[in-house]
Structures are given as structure tokens and as C-alpha cells.
């Protein structure tokens, strides 16, 4: 086994941060289109269904931010343990945020 290295690879760190932001964006967009019908209608008009537009928007955010973060030092400036925590809490928060929104509203 090689000597232990403490840093994530450039792509791994960049897309981890992109994934965390995309997960939060996903929940925020779900809230927004549920609360504001014109946005839902606009999203539906783009692809024929709001859900399809929503999925494409998530993918664009994930891939787009991943590529941007690969070209900048932003993700690598964050320590790997902190990046893992950010991603976990983004996923947990975004998931519970979805459930709570539809439970209470």
C-alpha cells in the first residue's frame, strides 16, 4: 500500500462540492416551484413537464459547478473531512427539507 495521502483528488473534491450544492439547489427549486405556480408552468413549458426540467437543471448544476470547481482552487481549499461533512449534511438537510415541506405545507 502507498503512503497515506490526506487530500482528495481535484475532480473528486470539485464534484463533491458540486454535488452538495446541487442537492440543496434541488430542494430549493422544489420548494420554489411548489410555492410559485408560474415557475412550475414555465419549467413545464421548457421540456413538456416540470419534473424533466427539474432533473435537467439539477444535472446542469452538478456538472457545471463540478467543472468550474475543477478549474478553480475553491474545492481543494476545503479540507477533505470538512468536504465530506458538507456533502453529508447537504444530503440530509435537503432530504429532510423535502419531506418536511410536503408534510407541513
Amino acid at each position: 500500500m502507498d503512503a497515506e495521502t490526506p487530500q482528495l483528488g481535484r475532480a473528486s473534491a470539485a464534484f463533491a462540492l458540486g454535488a452538495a450544492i446541487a442537492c440543496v439547489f434541488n430542494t430549493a427549486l422544489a420548494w420554489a416551484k411548489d410555492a410559485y405556480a408560474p415557475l412550475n408552468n414555465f419549467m413545464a413549458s421548457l421540456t413538456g413537464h416540470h419534473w424533466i426540467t427539474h432533473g435537467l437543471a439539477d444535472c446542469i448544476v452538478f456538472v457545471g459547478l463540478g467543472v468550474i470547481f475543477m478549474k478553480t482552487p475553491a474545492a481543494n481549499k476545503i479540507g477533505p473531512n470538512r468536504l465530506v461533512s458538507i456533502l453529508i449534511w447537504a444530503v440530509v438537510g435537503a432530504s429532510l427539507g423535502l419531506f418536511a415541506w410536503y408534510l407541513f405545507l
Partner: protein
Amino acid sequence: MNITNGDIILLGHAAFGSLAGMAALWIFVETLNARQETAGRTFKAALIAAIAMGAAWMLGGYWYVHFYPADKAIILKGPWPFAHDLVMETKEHLVFITGILAFYLPIAVRDKIYANAAARKMVLSVAMLVVLTSLAAEGFGAIVSHGVTVALQRGNGKGAR
């Protein structure tokens, strides 16, 4: 026997979703025992997870757009309207999170996880999140399906289809 395209698409969606969850569990176990000689196998498992999740996503999306409106009408007239209002509404957005994580897995496992504790921690975390969220999605799907069943069994969903 009468198996429709809608049946095949829905069951394919659940099957590919389960396959993606199992591949993520496979990645988790491989990462716990990461060695240089198993790196290729772990990457293949990550590709399987990502491709299966993509297939589950597309099949589920096609079924949701084209077939679900009839089931939704039945559910909302039945005794379990929360199967749509809460469970399906959450599921249809939660699966995007599962998908993003599954698509990230092949990128994460490209790091030398056998030599990099930080990379191992990241892969273990993401793989487990995929397992847990895909299990939640499977359970939510079962509740939605049962929402249709109880509506039809108790008569309130008659005429909705």
C-alpha cells in the same frame, strides 16, 4: 396474462433502482477492504451504480410523466391521499439527490482509495447515502403503490382510471 408497457417500465424502474442500491453497497464493502488490486473492480461497481441509477431515473421519469396521472387520480380519491401529497411528492424529488450521488461515485472512486484515507471516507459516505436514499425511494414507491391498492379495494378510487 396481460402485461402492459406501463407495467414493464414501472418494474424496470424499481429493478434498476434496486440494482443501483446494491452496487452502492458493493462499493461500500469494497472500500472497507480497499486494495490496489481491487480498484478496477470498485470502479466497475461505481459505473454499474451510475448507469443503473440513470436507467432507473429515465424509466421512472417516463412512467411518472405518462402513466402516473391515472394512479394519482385514484390515490387522491382514496383513503390514503398522503401517498401522493407527501410520499410521491417527496420521492419524485428525492431521487434526484440519489441520482446526483450515484453519478458522483465513479468520480470519487477514481482517487486511490486504497492509499488515501480521505478518499475512502468520501466514497464510504457517498455509497452509504446512495444505499439509504435508494432504500427510502423503494419504500416510498411501495407506499404509493399501496395508496392505489387501498383506494381500489375500498371503492373510493372507482371511476378515476
